[in-house]
């Protein structure tokens, strides 16, 4: 859809978006995801202007299943509501769009002010005061997410460790992967995959970059629920600690801002059960392996013409950072 067409569709919806909403203004694209678009816009009405955010996906662009794990946006909307009810900071759901809204697969949420750029959060002086509190805040929030009931309307898949690793190994082979380090990773981690007798709701992409941070209040919104599924609680904690989201602050393993002890201590206090450090390290290794495969997927999206861009091609060259991190983690497990 063109920006003009989106503005026209939003204009028809305006009365349903804010009380007295009349006109749409200042539509601008926030991200250039391969298929998922994020737009910011203003709804103007008698009581002033309200900034909202539209997330939409062109019909049928979720790929062929093996290359994407994204849930439909209507399930993301249901998760946002459930998360808010569970005390998880999220953008407020304004509208889960219907086909007759003319926006395709789409959801509209409130705008939240804050910083999401991971490097600034890990290194900028502006966040020096709040930074030491963020790991514990992550632990509390993750415990609440993991206690959420599965929304009745959302069909979340369940993946234990073996299934999660197998999903990415399948993609790796489809992309003709030939990396000795990743091969060793698939074998070692599959052999050590723990069972998951009590799967919980996972965010699936809880990391520095998907957290909206206010310099005074810390985490004000958990974003991007599209990779949500059910599985081992340690999966979300390990993913948060993958070195690629530390933005150079490697001595602060939790997102480049905090320590394992703060994360795990706060998680245990909120959840009433501990996640062992060893489980976090195992899932950190799985997460690092997944990031390596995701880098390969970016190259594939460029080559197929689905989303050609130099940026995606260059993310392919970040596979080596994941390999270097992974080989260290594997040596620790061996």
């Amino acid at each position, binding site marked *: 859809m063109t920006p003009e067409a989106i503005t026209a569709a939003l204009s028809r919806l305006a009365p349903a978006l804010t009380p007295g909403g009349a006109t749409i203004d200042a539509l601008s694209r926030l991200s250039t995801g391969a298929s998922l678009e994020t737009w910011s816009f203003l709804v103007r009405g008698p009581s002033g202007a309200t900034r909202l955010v539209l997330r939409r996906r062109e019909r049928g662009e979720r790929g062929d299943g093996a290359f994407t794990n994204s849930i439909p946006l209507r399930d993301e909307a249901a998760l946002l509501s459930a998360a808010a009810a569970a005390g998880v900071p999220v953008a407020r759901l304004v509208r889960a769009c219907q086909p007759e809204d003319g926006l395709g697969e789409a959801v509209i949420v409130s705008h939240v002010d804050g910083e999401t750029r991971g490097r600034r959060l890990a290194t900028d002086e502006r966040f020096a005061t709040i930074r030491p509190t963020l790991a514990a805040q992550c632990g509390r929030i993750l415990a609440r997410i993991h206690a959420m009931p599965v929304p009745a309307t959302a069909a979340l898949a369940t993946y234990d460790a073996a299934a999660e690793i197998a999903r990415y190994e399948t993609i790796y082979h489809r992309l003709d992967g*030939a*990396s*000795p*380090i990743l*091969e*060793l990773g698939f*074998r*070692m981690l599959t052999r*050590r995959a*723990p069972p998951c007798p009590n799967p919980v709701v996972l965010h699936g992409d809880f990391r520095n970059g998907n957290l909206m941070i206010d310099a005074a209040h810390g985490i004000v919104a958990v974003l991007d629920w599209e990779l949500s599924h059910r599985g081992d609680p340690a999966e979300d904690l390990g993913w948060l600690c993958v*070195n690629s989201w530390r933005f*150079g602050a*490697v*001595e602060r*393993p939790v997102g480049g801002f905090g*320590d*394992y*002890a703060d994360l*795990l201590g706060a998680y245990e206090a909120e959840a009433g059960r501990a996640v*062992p*450090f*060893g*489980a976090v*390290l*195992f899932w950190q290794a799985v997460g690092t392996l997944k990031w390596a495969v995701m880098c390969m997927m970016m190259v594939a999206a460029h080559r197929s013409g689905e989303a050609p861009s*130099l*940026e995606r*091609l*260059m993310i392919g*060259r*970040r596979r*080596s*950072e994941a*390999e*270097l*991190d992974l*080989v*260290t*983690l*594997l*040596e*620790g*497990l*061996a």
Partner: protein
Amino acid sequence: MNGDPSATEILAAIADWLDAQAKQMAGRDAYFARVAVNALGIVGRELAMSVGGSANANAALCAALRAGTIDETTPGLFGDLKALARHQIAIDQPHYRSPTLLNLETDSSHGHRSGSRDRAES
């Protein structure tokens, strides 16, 4: 030996020019110009550092790991794999910081150490 500009010199000159342009740009243009400067840097380092590694040897190592004839107990495997990884990161991101095993041991000294060992030996 003549004074012709080498491929790496030409690349470096283009990167310098583009870097100067990027400083005059704003927003997405500036961002993509910086991505392009980084890309040229990778190409330059690859030209300068390539050791002509054999694709066949790499494929054979992958096949052996997949088949299990080589695994984490094979002497020297981790040393070889770390050398591979360090060579590639020197091309792709020479300033990338990766935690060492020592970092992990230090991190794990927050009272969660035993869990790590339990898991590693299961």
